[in-house]
């Protein structure tokens, strides 16, 4: 006796959250059954393995049918085939678009192309996430990217509107899209200590301040591309380190203000010029795409690592950066205050977030 056909269709589509998670995690039916057995469900319910197998198959089939709709979540809301309560629809969508930290760190900033997709095998091996799940996550990134890349308006809003994600997840996706578009390098060994959250935080600041959308909310790609003009202008900041007088004055302003307030004052004083040069040079280099990509590598190399090797406490870093940014306003010979604020305001936030072990 073999079961040829075995289905269950409810007027309200049954969604089992646990099975959904197993499906999303890319387990095969038999693996999922084994995992469910291990969870002790048989003992709890008195069911048999055959019942579990049939149940799992059924849910997998339903999810498979729903997947097409999940690719365009508004369709899930409007479709007539599956009657699913709104709260369940939201859960389906949110979980489908959720991603693994380990996975996103691997592909963040990479081009979402076929080439990267080929590397998913390696990522799967490295992270222990099933290839199927990797593919789903990668395809999600790519799909969201494709839809919102050339869209007008706020990136987060666009993502929310087209994918019906929660605010938090939409923000994460905005970061992923932003990183993918600007191809920021995040995979270097030096950057391994950074979490996705760190990058997402930086991305949000950069989107708010450094993109076209920050100055004009009526342009295409406004939140995705950096403001080219702004990047060009950043060259002007170079005089802060090129002009020796200006640099000295800046240093003395900062030192005067921070004397007695920093635990690492002497280290700061000794390193001021190096740090300042590092930060300003990063700005000046941003005209080249290649250097834009290396932004985070540069920030870590030029600022985070020197400070860390001198064991700056985070609070000292904060005090320093605040003072460092503010003091520029007192430099009479420097005319690009607004530019400086736009640059440094964001950078300060990013650096503080990046500064940890």
């Amino acid at each position, binding site marked *: 006796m073999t*079961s040829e056909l*075995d289905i269950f269709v*409810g007027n309200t*589509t049954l969604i089992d959250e646990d099975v959904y998670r197993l499906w999303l995690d890319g387990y095969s039916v038999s693996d999922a059954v084994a995992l469910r057995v291990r969870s002790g469900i048989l003992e709890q319910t008195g069911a048999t393995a055959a019942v579990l197998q049939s149940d799992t198959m059924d849910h997998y089939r339903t999810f498979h049918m729903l997947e097409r709709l999940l690719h365009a979540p508004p369709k899930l809301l*409007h479709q*007539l*085939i599956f009657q699913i309560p709104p709260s369940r629809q939201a859960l389906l969508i949110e979980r489908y678009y959720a991603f693994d930290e380990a996975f996103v760190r691997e592909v963040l900033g990479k081009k979402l192309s076929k080439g990267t997709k080929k590397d998913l095998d390696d990522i799967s091996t490295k992270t222990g996430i099933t290839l199927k799940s990797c593919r789903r996550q990668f395809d999600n990134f790519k799909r969201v990217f494709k839809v919102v890349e050339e869209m007008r308006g706020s990136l987060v809003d666009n993502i929310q509107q087209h994918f019906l994600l929660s605010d938090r997840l939409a923000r994460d996706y905005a970061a992923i899209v932003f990183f993918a578009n600007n191809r920021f390098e995040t995979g270097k060994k030096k950057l391994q200590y950074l979490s996705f959250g760190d990058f997402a935080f930086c991305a949000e600041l950069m989107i708010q301040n450094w993109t076209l959308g920050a100055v004009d909310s009526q342009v295409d790609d406004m939140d995705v591309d950096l403001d080219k003009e702004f990047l060009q202008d950043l060259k002007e900041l170079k005089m802060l380190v090129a002009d020796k007088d200006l640099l000295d004055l800046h240093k003395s302003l900062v030192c005067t203000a921070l004397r007695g307030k920093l635990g690492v004052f002497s280290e700061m004083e000794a390193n001021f010029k190096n740090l300042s040069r590092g930060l300003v040079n990063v700005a000046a280099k941003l005209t080249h795409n290649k250097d834009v990509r290396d932004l985070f590598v540069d920030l870590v190399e030029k600022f985070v690592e020197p400070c860390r090797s001198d064991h700056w406490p985070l609070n000292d870093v904060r005090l320093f950066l605040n003072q460092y940014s503010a003091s520029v306003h007192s430099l009479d010979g420097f005319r690009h205050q607004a530019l400086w604020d736009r640059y440094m305001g964001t950078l300060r936030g990013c650096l503080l977030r990046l500064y940890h072990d």
Partner: protein
Amino acid sequence: MPGKLKVKIVAGRHLPVMDRASDLTDAFVEVKFGNTTFKTDVYLKSLNPQWNSEWFKFEVDDEDLQDEPLQITVLDHDTYSANDAIGKVYIDIDPLLYSEAATVISGWFPIYDTIHGIRGEINVVVKVDLFNDLNRFRQSSCGVKFFCTTSIPKCYRAVIIHGFVEELVVNEDPEYQWIDRIRTPRASNEARQRLISLMSGELQRKIGLKVLEMRGNAVVGYLQCFDLEGESGLVVRAIGTACTLDKLSSPAAFLPACNSPSKEMKEIPFNEDPNPNTHSSGPSTPLKNQTYSFSPSKSYSRQSSSSDTDLSLTPKTGMGSGSAGKEGGPFKALLRQQTQSALEQREFPFFTLTAFPPGFLVHVGGVVSARSVKLLDRIHNPAFVGIMGNTRSYKLLDWNSFNSDEPETRDAWWAEIRQEIKSHAKALGCHAVVGYSESTSICEEVCILSASGTAAVLNPRFLQDGTVEGCLEQRLEENLPAGCGFCHIPYDELNMPFPAHLTYCYNCRKQKVPDVLFTTIDLPIDATVIGKGCLIQARLCRLKKKAQAEANATAISNLLPFMEYEVHTQLMNKLKLKGMNALFGLRIQITVGENMLMGLASATGVYLAALPTPGGIQIAGKTPNDGSYEQHISHMQKKINDTIAKNKELYEINPPEVSEEIIGSPIPEPRQRSRLLRSQSESSDEVTELDLSHGKKDAFVLEIDDTDAMEDVHSLLTDVPPPSGFYSCNTEIMPGINNWTSEIQMFTSVRVIRLSSLNLTNQALNKNFNDLCENLLKSLYFKLRSMIPCCLCHVNFTVSLPEDELIQVTVTAVAITFDKNQALQTTKTHVEKSLQRASTDNEELLQFPLELCSDSLPSHPFPPAKAVTVEKASPMGEGNFRNRSAPPCANSTVGVVKMTPLSFIPGAKITKYLGIINMFFIRETTSLREEGGVSGFLHAFIAEVFAMVRAHVAALGGNAVVSYIMKQCVFMENPNKNQAQCLINVSGDAVVFVRESELEVVSTQQPTANCQPSCTGGEVTT
């Protein structure tokens, strides 16, 4: 009444990409009704076209309005080649033809293609203007309302119940026409869909005409089926009950509830002896003597003799005469006279209803059924036709006189069977058959026609006009005890149509009742039931040699009696094992396949307080000298006894001890045991054999004389009870549960198993089939575990044998969560509720309360909360249902449409019936693997069918389908060719319901004055 049909095509969405180059579609729409076609403009390059067409107007006869469906085809415009069809929508405009139903059909319909399934949606608005033209010769029956619901619809009142209407139409099946060889599968499928739609419309119109002739205005319990007879054609047939219905203006208006002094009151069946326990009332005749552990042996001897088709209390063979029609008393005579006059003019006094207005059902005789094997092949001249049933004679029909292509042939077949049923009922002293249904099973050229129902005596009051007052008086005189009246035998006890063991009713002590009662109807609202009920199934397979034509028909005819007999035995055994004494909703399905016959009987077992306690089951060994064998037997016996005890606990069956009944030795004397012989079938007339002097009879005896019987005993014990928190029944509601919440889940589950052809013995087959059903149930319980505590209601199993080694089982049911904590409160207020129901349903506003008050005098010996009057959870009786689900979330896009096989929605009130939904779909694929194999294919198709039903209901302005039924699910596959095809036919009533607001039961007062009308309709939230 000609009319003007107006259609507007508004927009489309989610259309498929038809042009690969642009990834877009140039869609336009053809709107066709009858022979007229309109087209919209082509909406270029869009998957979400906005046509916003003008109103397309069709001027048509109302006859066409009833027959024809509106056909909407969405196409992709192609400049150079033929336009590609995207899909179709068929809209039945019948609901627009009667005034009280929908006025407009407007909404999003899935665009359906028989090859690709649903491909996007289309927004359509349909209206009908009817012109009054009364002078014309009527061919149409516009205005007659149709209901699938097998009870009087909730917001109506039955003025007269006229009776049986039936009709059938026959046509050639397009799939078997020569043209099918040259047309595409899509064209063939669409031709079939359209034809069945047309035939359904025609059938409905013809039935409507009959109803008008009878001066009715509605058909209730409308059941339409189609038979795919292959080469010999396509039959669409329907039966129903013609009624005159009145719409209730304000059903929520309650009379002030009477004082119902104690909570035990509900257990007091009206007019019964108030103290039956403490003293024996009435003479202690041998008949009444009965011990707890065993029941009269006559029940057993009836077993052996009832191997013919009729189950339970049906008469013996050849009982067509009026011998059993002797009157039991002056009242019965009177009643019979009255009703007979009302019923006699009818050819078939049949009613497809399964639930009735209070007072309608007077007595129930038992199940009557008839089967007949027919040959569909018209080439073979003399066909052997077995007429199953009491006559047990096989008539030889001359096939030359029949042309199977004509409806007359089929009409004659059914007429024959109905005649049979009628005579069975008569033999039971009944003049009517209720809960009547008909079905067929077809394999190749052999067709089994089956009909079954419950013989009953009815109150004439509903059957004819102008007798209402007279009947009311009569009712008062007759003093029919409400809780047990229907159990009282309608036949003459001294001249019984079959051997049965009778006792005085355990409720009223005045009338005789049988020891078990089988019926096809729902449990009457006022029946007194102890404990809860449960689903009981008998399952059976019998191998059959492959044969042709007559030989095949003969073989089947010969097998049928044995199958019926065994199914009956199984049911009886299982019922006793559950410690119960009555079956409701009995449905026996015999399915014929190439090389086997399958029998599946489902029913809901209950313990009726009026009937005696069932005896246990005794096992008898054949060789008592063998020590180890004896030991084995006693072991089995112990197991059985344990099971019975466990079941009694599980289903809360604690009937009051009836002390005076315990007389005589508890051990049955061996000589009184009769043998249970499965082969014994042709025992003749036993009508007068009943020996009433045999006071003490032993229990139901199973003699283990061979391995076969052993298997049976084992299989009895292998039926696993549902996990705790689950109950199941195949009736509308579960006896003993009435605190339903509004959380419902309707589902369909289909399983197909392939038998390994190696070990095809009857036993192996039985085991496979049994496992299939049991596993299916287990899966359901597991899947629905989040709904615990929950009851599967209206569990409907259908078996088919699509191929040699395939068994297909389809189950549709609804799971309803109930609130455990409210049980006590509910039982308290529950008689009042049924009271109010009764009183609002009819005009007997005074009667019940009066009876009640007079009855509920002193305290009662019965333990409270054990006996519960079953109440149908009607909108009015649900005041204290809790709506546990979250407040209805406003889903802006798609409104929720509930579907249920029940006639009501728990926790809600049906305010409007919008019309009948009757849909037929075909789905075919040539890429079975790509669609996820057979399971993926069928899963998607059933989901699509649900979606299309919901969309039609929503477009009518409804939010639920009640009395939903999947009448057919024919699945064929050819994995080698990567192909599969499935046909599904569903129906139901589209309704509008409103949720009842949560009402707190205010019953804090002293126990003597809980007269709060706890179930007023109250405010309503949508």
